[in-house]
């Protein structure tokens, strides 16, 4: 955007009656005051941060729609529709400039803007959605006539395979009604689009579409997947271009005007990544057993116990636990000694040195492309897929009820506390379940909510140290 001047903005000529969702395809020739440059960006950052919080708390899509609706009304609304559109566009481009400057920032921006777009799209009616699809210029046609007929039965199967009536409702309705209800709510939709399966990866992954000979049949109500993929791809490319432009021309040219503002904005809202150890995270080998019982969240405690028991962990477990320990302050040498001590009981120290030491050094940024990997946040752990022989993942999500209760019992939860936690689990609020566990174990409240295992650890250490400052906890 070439257009920043400290002059009064000329009103846009667009006559916008409905709040339109811009696609941010090109920077528009608008002028904006320097003060607005920063203020607009901050308002949008509040929206993006709200989206990030909502996702971290495991809100389902419908809940996220409401979150986004509320956030947008609070921070981005303007009585004049064209002013609102301008703010929308300008703030996006400003933040894109701010967040193009590192991989971490880019990833966050991409995720949040895509999520924001997704939920704003979902809030629009079908006609508005079709219009947006049209704006992307996608060449996909609706399936009609004989082709649609030949697919109807299987399309119906897809719809029924996704059918969700909550268990409590089923108990209230007798069998006959359930069948009738099923028939009503699981009708094949009126419009289906035939698109290459590559365009809708999330629908493919969830088996939410019929796929035949490389084509996915996307229902009107699933259009959001199609456009979100396009949107994300476009923003991703744009970020790279913006970064290049920033590095080559803008940063230097604007060093007395915009650059300081841009640099300040980026530190405002990205959460801590626990890649640097803090005063509460600095453990050594001799403390590790004690600290695992007193301060580890359930996911890490489980991995740790299994490691002690089996003298082995599969790759997913090694990554999740290994990076957590790094965030907790375990130095590379201690980490190598720790894993070596365990693994050599199973596979021998020679084999450990050959096959496993490399991976640990890799995690600490000492091998390969030398990225200093950051410990996994809850969102990542919850969405992982532990398979046969694995112990990673989030116990609140991946354990059966019995196993989870047993594990919580070992952590010292009372039956009342356990019921509260299980209630959250049943509603798929895994991070809230972990937060409640934290509150029960330490007898304190945690308003922020747990969204990172290392956060759990640090908060736990804070509490324990404040109680007995001298002794190691």
């Amino acid at each position, binding site marked *: 955007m070439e257009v920043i001047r400290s002059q009064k903005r000329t009103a846009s000529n667009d006559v916008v009656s409905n709040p339109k969702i811009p696609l941010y395809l090109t920077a528009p020739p608008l002028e904006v005051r320097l003060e607005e440059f920063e203020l607009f960006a901050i308002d949008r950052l509040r929206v993006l941060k709200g989206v990030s919080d909502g996702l971290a708390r495991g809100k389902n899509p419908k809940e996220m729609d409401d979150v986004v609706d509320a956030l947008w009304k609070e921070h981005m609304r303007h009585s004049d529709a064209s002013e609102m559109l301008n703010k929308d566009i300008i703030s996006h481009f400003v933040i894109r400039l701010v967040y193009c400057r590192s991989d971490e920032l880019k990833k966050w921006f991409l995720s949040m803007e895509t999520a924001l777009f997704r939920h704003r799209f979902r809030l629009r009616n079908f006609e508005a959605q079709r219009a947006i699809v049209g704006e992307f210029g996608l060449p996909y046609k609706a399936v009609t006539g004989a082709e649609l007929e030949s697919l109807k039965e299987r399309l119906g199967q897809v719809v029924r395979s996704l059918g969700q009536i909550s*268990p409590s409702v089923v108990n209230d309705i007798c069998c006959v009604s359930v069948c009738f209800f099923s028939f009503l709510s699981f009708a094949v939709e009126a419009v289906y689009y035939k698109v290459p399966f590559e365009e809708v990866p999330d629908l493919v992954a969830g088996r939410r579409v019929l796929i035949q000979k490389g084509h996915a049949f996307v229902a009107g109500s699933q259009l959001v997947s199609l456009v979100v993929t396009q949107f994300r791809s476009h923003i991703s490319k744009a970020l790279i271009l913006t970064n290049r432009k920033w590095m080559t021309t803008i940063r230097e040219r604007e060093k007395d005007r915009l650059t300081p503002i841009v640099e300040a904005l980026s530190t405002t809202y990205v959460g801590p990544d626990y890649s640097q150890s803090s005063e509460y995270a600095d453990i050594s080998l001799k403390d590790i057993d004690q600290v695992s019982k007193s301060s580890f969240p359930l996911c890490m405690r489980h991995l740790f116990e299994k490691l002690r028991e089996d003298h082995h962990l599969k790759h997913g477990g090694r990554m999740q636990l290994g990076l957590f320990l790094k965030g907790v302050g375990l130095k590379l040498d201690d980490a190598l000694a720790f894993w070596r001590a365990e693994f050599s009981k199973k596979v021998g120290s020679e084999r450990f040195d050959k096959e496993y030491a490399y991976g640990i050094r890799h995690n600490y940024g000492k091998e390969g492309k030398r990225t200093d990997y950051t410990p996994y946040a809850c969102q990542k752990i919850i969405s992982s897929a532990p398979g046969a022989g694995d112990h990673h993942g989030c116990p609140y999500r991946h354990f059966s009820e019995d*196993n989870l209760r047993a594990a919580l019992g070992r952590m010292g939860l009372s039956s009342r506390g356990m019921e509260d936690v299980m209630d959250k689990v049943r509603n798929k609020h895994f991070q809230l379940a972990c937060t409640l566990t934290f509150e029960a174990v330490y007898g304190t409240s945690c308003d922020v909510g747990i969204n990172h295992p290392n956060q759990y650890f640090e908060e736990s250490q804070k509490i324990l140290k404040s109680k007995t400052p001298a002794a190691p906890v």
Partner: protein
Amino acid sequence: ERKMIREEIESREDEKMIDAAQMNNPEPEECFNVNYLRIYYGGKSNLFPYSDIHKWLSYGHDGKHPGCDEYYFGRREFSFTLENDVYLRYKSFKNASSMEDAIKSNFPYKIDIGAVYSVDPDKRHAYSQTGTNVFTPVERELVFDIDITDYDDVRYCCSGADVCSKCWPLITVAIKVIHTSLTEDFGFKHILWVFSGRRGVHCWVCDPKARRMTNEQRSAVAEYFRVYKGNENNARKVALMGYSLHPFLARSYVDYLKGFFEGELQATQSIFSTKDKYEKILAMISDEDIQSELRGKWENSARSSLSEEAISLVRWEQLKNTLQSKKHKAPTLRMCVEEIVFTFTYPRIDLEVSKQMNHLLKAPFCVHPKTGRVCVPIDPNNCDEFDPLAVPTLSQLIEEINSGGSRMDVDDDEDSDTSLLAKSIKFFRSSFLEPLLKSCKEEIESSYKTKIGKSKDSFSW
């Protein structure tokens, strides 16, 4: 000379594995032998099909057409695992003969194939990590890895690295399900299935569309195939929600899984015949009353003159009937019968292998160091016939050469199938390589024509 080799085999033990399962593996004569490996890869015997592998991985870029990218093969990553577990990554070769020379001077125990990168892997350090010439994968086959050890909780004949004729059929069913989906659902045409040498199979999808898939798209396909979400922390490892199966799962169930479960699986694994076995299945039924009802029936019928297989079948019928009448009790019972069938029979792929372009996978026609068996292709349309225990071993191949029994140059006109490996190589060529190369060349030609056409237009005024 033969005696000397035999002595060498007996004195060469595999000291590196402390894994107990390995200790039980008998037949030292069939094991790996570095001298045989040299014969396999080296000199006059021409067992390893260098030029076929090169042709495959060149995908038609043989330099004979102006639209060819002569540097394409050179941008493919290979990795070698050498005798002392030395691991060499980012190896690349300009052409077939430099690949052959490298293999003949290293005699790797394992050769892996990686992605085609934006620049020669060998020269990657010359390029900076930012800017336009970043070292990054640009093409890679869509690959799958199915390993029988991932089925350990549902096979009773073997565990760990062993495989036998009773559990191999699980792999056969997996091939059928995945192959049908790859062709019918995803429309892929150029698919190579390869025996991994010991206890599983690899699948290479080589269509241009497949090779250009992003990590996200690969991940999506892998997740599409995923049903089993189990480990020892949960009892119900397959949870089929909804009111019907997705058409892909329904077709797999009807065409392959149901028949296999009720037929061959009962015969080979008798999954209901003992208390330990049937308790595992009862744990998958999320209703205590139904569990007790069935348990009651089975505990009391312990003394029976029926075979294990017959007992299993009877109990399965009882389970089905009970669940049929009670399935409206709870949503989790709706497809309990199908869940049980899927738990025991549905393919279990290693998701991590498929999700990332830079994941390396063992090359076809390698020799497995623990079994000595060659990683031969498998015909997906005839996979019932494949027997992992009948695959030629390195020592058999060397035996064949020593006894002068066959011509080593596999000639397509040759009618005699005397060479053990000839059949596999012929199959590789006729079923996979030839159709693939034909289609690649057509693509190179048509995209060349398009490019020419475009630049012609830009000059017209």
